[in-house]
């Protein structure tokens, strides 16, 4: 019996039993268990028909899963196979980090979860027509010795993970700009140094399972056949997983609202890769897509920056490091940029972003058809550090999205390809004006890019030098700052980019540490509130309530 017949039969059964939505409302007792829960919590993104085009889906990338295809990424089953019930359940509970798919642990009862899984399966005829999927047997993990990691690294190159993920896993391999999922939408090769954003979890066991099973519907293939064909052993594939795990930090970065700048005697580091930076403490500042004001941006490239700060009583230096697979403007990424921009600009007009990038009317895939491009040029990468114009005494700070007319903010803006850093005032997102009276070069900048990583050093005298609107840095005070980043090859410019909320820079005083504890504690609360604002705004926008 063929799938088709089974599909038809299934459809028939579904129709007969009312599983498929009929125009007339069904009597409550006939609706399948799970439907009510699904319609309430999931349909907003995944669509009432399960096809992934819910009202909140907007221009989300990756798209909410289309359950009618039966293609699931996070599985314990062979490449191309359906997931087990346990696989689906695990994704519902844990969500898919790094995507819009939230986790739902503690939200539903066991019974509701079971019904939800069963209901998701009714969207695809494959669950009826296919034999029950079987979990691939997996041998237990060998220990992650130095030797094992070395072998893992060798195999990482031998089996050419680097083609997509790049030599050190930053998602910048030569094939990365061209990757598309099964719906012809651009998809990023995961940045393997950020395991806390892996869709299926960041533990070595989870990574290994992804290598064995692949991620259906994406370019990420299964490597299981390499064992069967005796090209490598089970242990060797485990060692690749160990190696990948070792590319990310032991623990996901803790977000601390306060970035401490230690005081050094003598000169500040002379360059962005100066040894002095190696000992300076690093702080992680997460960034999210700008979804607060129109046009919103759901597919940011930069999801966080690492910041270090030092000062010597005369000058302050910041070192900001972030991953970006493209050094924009980067011609290799032009096609990618065009696709992402086309999707963004299709905006609410189509619930099917694929329609924006390709003519999927059934024509043979024509990879050369240029997408409609409306952004004139391929913008450069850029980064902004935002401060208030003066250190606030209380908890009042300017609006975190680059201030407003009442309370402008003071910015350092760096742009790839332009010398130095501009000092600006802003009265709203991307509403820049030059800082009056600022002499060029007052903020020294040095930048390096290699292997998918930007490193930017910014340095300025603590004192404002009498220029109105330019922040004077003071040791021993909580100085609000925020970071914004743009990846030009992702079509990011102006309001489309990554934003962060207010954090605090605290420059150490030469005195004992007790001095700064109190203000920091006081400011922690407001900083946390700032994060909440961003997160809430984002969630609201995603759910479509903000439209």
């Amino acid at each position, binding site marked *: *019996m*063929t*799938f*088709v*017949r089974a*599909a*038809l039969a299934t*459809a028939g059964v579904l129709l007969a039993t009312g599983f498929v939505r009929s125009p007339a409302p069904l009597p409550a007792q006939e609706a399948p268990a799970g439907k009510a829960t699904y319609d309430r919590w999931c349909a907003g993104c995944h669509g009432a028909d399960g096809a992934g085009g819910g009202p909140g889906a907007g221009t989300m990338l990756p798209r909410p899963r*289309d359950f*009618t*295809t*039966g*293609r699931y990424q996070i599985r314990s089953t*062979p*490449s*191309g*196979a*359906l997931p087990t019930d346990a696989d689906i359940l695990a994704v519902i509970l844990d969500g898919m980090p790094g995507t819009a798919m939230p986790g739902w642990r503690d939200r539903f009862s066991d019974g509701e979860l079971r019904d939800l899984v069963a209901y998701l399966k009714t969207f*695809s*005829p*494959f669950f009826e027509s*296919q034999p029950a999927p079987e979990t691939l047997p997996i041998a237990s993990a060998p220990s992650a010795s130095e030797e094992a990691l070395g072998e893992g690294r060798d195999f990482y190159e*031998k*089996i*050419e993970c680097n*083609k*997509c993920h790049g030599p050190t896993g930053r998602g910048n391999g*030569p*094939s990365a700009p*061209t*990757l*598309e999922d*099964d719906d012809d939408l651009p998809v990023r090769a995961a940045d393997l140094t950020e395991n806390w954003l892996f869709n299926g979890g960041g533990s070595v066991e989870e990574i290994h399972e992804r290598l064995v099973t*692949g991620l*259906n519907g*994406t*370019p*990420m*293939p*299964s*490597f*299981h*056949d*390499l064992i069967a*064909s005796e*090209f490598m052993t089970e242990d060797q594939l485990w060692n690749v997983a160990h190696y990948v795990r070792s590319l990310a930090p032991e623990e996901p970065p803790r977000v601390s609202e306060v970035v401490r700048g230690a005081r050094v005697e003598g000169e500040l580091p002379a360059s962005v890769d100066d040894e002095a930076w190696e000992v300076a403490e690093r702080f992680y500042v997460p960034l999210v897509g700008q979804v607060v004001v129109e046009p919103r941006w759901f597919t940011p490239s930069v999801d966080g920056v690492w910041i270090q700060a030092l000062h010597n009583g005369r000058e302050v230096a910041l070192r900001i490091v972030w991953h970006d697979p493209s050094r924009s403007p980067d011609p290799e990424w032009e096609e990618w940029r065009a696709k992402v921009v086309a999707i963004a600009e299709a905006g609410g007009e189509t619930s099917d972003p694929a329609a924006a990038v390709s003519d*999927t*009317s*059934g*024509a*043979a*895939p024509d*990879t*050369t058809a240029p997408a409609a491009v409306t952004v004139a040029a391929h913008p450069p990468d850029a980064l902004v550090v935002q401060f208030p114009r003066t250190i606030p005494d209380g908890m009042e700070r300017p609006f975190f999205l680059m201030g407003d007319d009442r309370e402008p903010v003071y910015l350092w803006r760096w742009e790839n390809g332009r010398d130095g850093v501009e000092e600006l005032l802003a009265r709203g997102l991307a509403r820049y004006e030059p800082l009056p009276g600022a002499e060029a070069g007052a903020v020294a900048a040095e930048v390096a890019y290699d292997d998918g990583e930007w490193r930017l050093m910014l340095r300025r005298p603590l004192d404002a030098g009498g220029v109105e609107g330019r922040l004077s840095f003071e040791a021993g005070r909580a100085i609000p700052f925020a970071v914004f980043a743009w990846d030009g090859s992702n079509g990011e410019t102006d309001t489309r980019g990554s934003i962060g909320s207010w954090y605090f820079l605290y420059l150490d005083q030469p005195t004992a540490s007790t001095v700064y504890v109190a203000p920091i504690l006081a400011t922690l609360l407001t900083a946390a509130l700032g994060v909440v604002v961003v997160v809430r705004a984002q969630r609201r926008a995603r759910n479509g309530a903000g439209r």
Partner: protein
Amino acid sequence: MKRSLEAMTMAVLFAALTACGGGGEEADTGGEVATDEEVGPAVSPDSAATVTGVVNFTGAAPAGEPIDMSEEPTCAEKHAEGPTRQTVVTGDGTLANVFVYVKDGLGSRTFPTSSEPVEIDQDGCEYHPRVLAIQANQPLVIKNSDGILHNINTQPTVNQGFNVSQPVSMETTKSFTSPEVMIPVKCDVHGWMEAFIGVQSHPYMAVTATDGSFRLENLPPGTYTIEAWHERYGTQTQTVTVGPQESGEVTFEYSADMAGRPVPMAEPIDLHDHGSEQPVAHAGR
């Protein structure tokens, strides 16, 4: 279950027909000719018919678009004249890489599955062949003659796809379970690589060579809808009737100005679904 039901219906029909001693017209509607050959080699040598034909092409074939393979010297070296994307391969007024198959007319017959493997090779960062025909459940041997990383990402709608990696010269054997015209194949490492696999439950299919010719042998006598599928110029159908040991001829005419017509992809063709002219509802989009 369903199948034996069908067999019974057929048997009853047949009995009724022979009892009336007529039914010539019904026989023409295709499929009812042989009844006692539900399983097994369906066609006896003394009745086997043949359909041959040619796919003609008029107009200028578009030049292949150049492919930048500089990132992959192993492959670039294999293309002395510079690699190009060849969506249209023509001979002398003929069209190659056309998948030709019996779309309708075989009724409810089933046919043994060939155990002879069909091979697809990755050589010079191209698939060879670019278009291939395979029976459901017939082994598909995927070779990697390049010895560099390819991933074989099949994107069917009716079948379950797979996406497996081949980082070295090696062979992987896979198969498909259901008829589907066509299954796109891609390599995500080399975005330009593309192939199309046509799957049928019966063996009556072919892919044209540069001379445009095809030959479907060993057919039971009957009336058949033959479809031709080309990745750029779409599909065409012809009907042909062949009696025992007869040979029928079919000609398809393609031309350069047909470009841009819709090309059906990943559509299930099920011989057993009588009466449904439409591509049958399939999973997905």
